């Protein structure tokens, strides 16, 4: 096995991983950084983010407002001290990106422009047309090239963490092009592998968003926190799940039911006005909007197409010129994928799974419970999103906490002793053997695609927008069954060079475990909060029993063990989450 000795290994080269790598390089140029990613960095799913990234810039805005929006939006399941740190550091990180060349959209006077986003009281979403994630990712990737201490391992697939002496000391990866294994020794490891949206059927996520890093940490005893909170984005393309950014609504788009009626006013988000108004109507939070869709569907007021129910996202009144300026990608997507001219026709949309609020449990400094192991980005639960993430908070999170994770890991690496290579190699060899077994002895009868599909279907049924004990239990059972059937999987392709059949099998293994963490966390939370909404007698939020984080622990072949952890409250006591006129009345 090939060995590379690094000081800090970073798994994942999306926004979070790249920002962390730069932070390590700037903290100490002498530290050797290994940046490992299963795809070339610019393919990471950060590239798909459209709408924007939050940071307070306007004079009428304040950090407190951003804090309150975030904590209220998260239904008070946020770590408030972490949110305070977050909102305070967003502006400098966005400016930093600007200095690195991010092509933020501008006002005529040359200052950065901001747009409105759901659940935000004041416009504070920085944007680069509707390709914000694309521009942030490419800016970070291209900037990272400046630092000679960052050694990239592009298209290397991480299969395991290596821990010894009670701390993490490296990772094992497959070089995809050759199928060879490599041990990257490191004194600190940062996981930045992104979300797990692909465990659901209809979703906005890229094919690579399979929860790998979550499963890696989980298997090594780190709890997955708040996994039941999966965000449904209300405006996605039926069938493919492709996203039409919230910025469509930020720019003034309407959601219409089959009668052409702006139905959101029936769900506590009104009254309806022509101009977009923060926290009203279409600019309500995602969980509320997705839930309203569900009710409209129950009432038979949605439209119906080849991929089931949908409603209309109407952008026509914005006019072609503005659409092309502010939402060019949306325009292109509607035209090429659906044959629709959004200046002339409304776009059919429906909710789809979008974002994993929960993740690897870390403290406010991105450290996990395993010494030397850090996590950041969508794979982590640092505590800012609570039960429902506000749009544009997660791109900002990548930068704020990417930098923090980098500096923390750098200082840990500097003080940690080097591990004993021999014993690390032995452990890595054991991981290698397990994965090679999966290649060699996988002539079973279970097709990867079939298991994947059954999993995704079952997750959608059990852990959708609204949840019932019965269907959640069915999902838990199904997942247990699928994990058993996984042992009888078939990997047709036995070769080594770019064997994506093999990689998909490994990913499926990760996904099944993460899915279990989600389903079991969900069935155990007997209340409704944020993205977790029940219809079986637990329709209300229950702060007495459930103002706490769920923690899912890996339990080998059995179902995960679910425990709970306290929520840190500093200055915002749990209150009523209200939007629209009711929100104004409640002083939000």
């Amino acid at each position: 096995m090939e060995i590379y000795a690094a000081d800090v290994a970073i798994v994942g080269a999306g926004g979070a991983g790249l920002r962390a790598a730069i932070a390590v390089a700037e903290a100490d140029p002498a530290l050797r950084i290994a940046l490992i990613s299963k795809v070339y960095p610019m393919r990471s799913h950060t590239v798909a983010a459209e709408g924007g990234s939050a940071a307070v810039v306007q004079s009428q805005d304040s950090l407190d407002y951003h804090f309150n929006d975030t904590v209220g939006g998260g239904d008070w399941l946020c770590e408030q001290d972490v949110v305070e740190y977050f909102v305070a550091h967003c502006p400098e990180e966005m400016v930093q990106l600007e200095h690195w060349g991010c092509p933020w959209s501008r006002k005529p006077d040359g200052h950065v422009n901001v747009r409105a986003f759901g659940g935000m009281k004041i416009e504070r979403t920085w944007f680069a047309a509707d390709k914000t994630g694309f521009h942030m990712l490419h800016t970070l990737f291209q900037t990272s090239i400046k630092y000679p201490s960052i050694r990239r391992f592009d298209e290397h697939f991480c299969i395991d963490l290596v821990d010894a002496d009670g701390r993490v000391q490296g990772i094992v990866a497959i070089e995809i092009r050759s199928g060879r294994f490599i041990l990257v020794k490191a004194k600190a490891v940062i996981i930045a592998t992104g979300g797990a949206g692909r465990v659901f059927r209809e979703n906005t996520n890229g094919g690579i968003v399979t929860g790998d890093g979550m499963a890696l940490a989980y298997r090594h005893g780190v709890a997955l926190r708040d996994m039941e909170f999966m965000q449904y984005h209300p405006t996605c393309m039926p069938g493919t799940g492709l996203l039409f950014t919230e910025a469509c609504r930020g720019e003034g788009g309407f959601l219409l039911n089959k009668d052409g009626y702006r139905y959101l006013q029936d769900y506590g988000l009104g009254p309806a006005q022509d101009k977009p108004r923060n926290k009203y109507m279409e600019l309500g939070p995602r969980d509320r909007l997705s839930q309203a869709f569900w009710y409209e569907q129950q009432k038979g007021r949605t439209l119906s197409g080849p991929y089931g129910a949908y409603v209309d996202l109407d952008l026509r009144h914005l006019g072609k010129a503005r659409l092309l300026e502010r939402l060019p990608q949306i325009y292109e997507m509607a035209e090429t994928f659906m044959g629709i001219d959004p200046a002339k026709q409304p776009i059919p949309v429906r909710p789809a799974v979008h974002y994993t609020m929960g993740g690897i449990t870390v403290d406010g400094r991105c450290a996990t419970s395993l010494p030397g192991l850090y996590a950041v980005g969508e794979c982590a639960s640092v505590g800012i999103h609570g039960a429902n993430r506000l749009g544009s908070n997660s791109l900002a999170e990548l930068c704020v906490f990417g930098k923090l994770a980098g500096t923390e890991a750098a200082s840990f690496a500097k003080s940690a002793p080097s591990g004993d290579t021999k014993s690390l190699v032995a452990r890595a060899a054991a991981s290698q053997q397990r994965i090679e077994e999966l290649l060699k002895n996988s002539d079973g009868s279970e097709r990867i695609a079939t298991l994947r599909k059954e999993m995704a279907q079952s997750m959608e049924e059990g852990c959708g927008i609204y949840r019932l004990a019965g269907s959640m239990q069915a999902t838990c059972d199904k997942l247990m069954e699928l994990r058993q059937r996984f042992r009888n999987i078939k990997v047709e392709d036995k070769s080594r060079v770019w064997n994506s059949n093999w990689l998909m099998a490994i990913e499926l293994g990760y996904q099944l475990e993460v899915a279990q963490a989600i389903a079991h966390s969900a069935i155990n939370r007997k209340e409704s909060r944020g993205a977790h909404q029940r219809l079986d007698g637990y329709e209300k939020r229950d702060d007495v029993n459930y103002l706490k984080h769920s923690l899912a622990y890996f339990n080998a072949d059995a179902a995960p063990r679910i425990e709970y952890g306290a929520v840190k409250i500093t200055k915002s006591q749990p209150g009523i989450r209200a939007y629209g006129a009711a929100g104004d009345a409640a002083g939000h």
Partner: protein
Amino acid sequence: MNTPAGNGRRPYMRSMQGWWRRNTFYVEYMIHEATALFVAAYAVVLLVGLVRLSQGQAAWNAWLAALRSPGSVVFHVLVLAAISYHAWTWFQIMPRTLPPVMLKGKRLSAAAITRSGLAAAAIVTLMVFFLVRGLWA
């Protein structure tokens, strides 16, 4: 399968043989490149004319006479077609070679640049034609 831990990589490089036949875009490109042969041939004709001119009236008239031969006329018809095609493609490519041309704060479209190029060629053509005709008529 036989290379358990080894390296089975063997990147395959495809040949470029006959690439210009692979799609119509390339074929057109090769045709407009080939117009250079006609430009060259015409340049030779002109050069010879220039030399003959410097050699006096008799030489010049011989050159003019040669131009009147049927072969020469046919040849020049071909040259005319080729050079006209060259001019056409030249202006098609022109927008790709210019920095943004701003007109009243707006960027001139590629089609507009091509149109201006063709218009310029038309004007120059008429000017030269009438100059030659008018001056010596």
